[in-house]
């Protein structure tokens, strides 16, 4: 079992609200990621971080923002939620060993529904 935790697991929120999805890992991993996945579809990378104070946009454009103030914590924020943001958001982390073979550990996911 991976030590990476996401809260909340499920969130239903009204349009225009600000939300933050929390992600924490206790493995000391430098690299963290946020993926977005619609039901039955593939995962899309929306944000990643290589370490503290490092954040980058992923392959899929997202209106969300992230921050990395501490190694173990990588929250994702939506300033003004819209129904189009309804999706599952998966947080992940990996340890950069310098070899292109490291695997990624995922959290359980946060299901966001914007009504």
């Amino acid at each position, binding site marked *: 079992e991976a030590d990476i935790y996401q809260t909340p697991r499920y969130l239903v929120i009204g349009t225009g609200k600000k939300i933050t999805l929390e992600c924490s890992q206790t493995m000391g991993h430098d690299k963290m990621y946020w993926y977005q996945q619609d039901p039955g579809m593939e995962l899309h990378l929306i944000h990643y971080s290589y370490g503290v104070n490092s954040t980058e946009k992923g392959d899929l454009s997202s209106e969300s923002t992230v921050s990395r103030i501490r190694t173990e914590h990588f929250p994702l924020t939506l300033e003004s939620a819209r129904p189009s943001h309804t999706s599952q958001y998966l947080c992940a982390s990996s340890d*950069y060993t310098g070899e292109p073979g490291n695997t990624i550990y995922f959290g*359980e996911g946060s299901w966001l529904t914007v009504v």
Partner: protein
Amino acid sequence: SQQGEEDPQALSIQEGENATMNCSYKTSINNLQWYRQNSGRGLVHLILIRSNEREKHSGRLRVTLDTSKKSSSLLITASRAADTASYFCATAIFTGGGNKLTFGTGTQLKVEL
């Protein structure tokens, strides 16, 4: 275009049968990984095969990689109802900061009693 595409999209078999899923990709990779996702849950890493490897085993899982055809297959032998899940391949390309993983579209496997 999708780096990793899997087929079949869905597969239904009887318990005890073998399940084979295929993954094709477009560009050169450093490694290919298979993940499993139970409904509504996060992904769990199953197995990684490096670009210089052709076959790898882990328990009831067997993965093959053919870099000339840019394809991989995941075989689950003697399937069980608990194997019911979605299976994703992910191709890894090394960038300056480490691996960049791109996930395929997934195969939904249902194993019936």
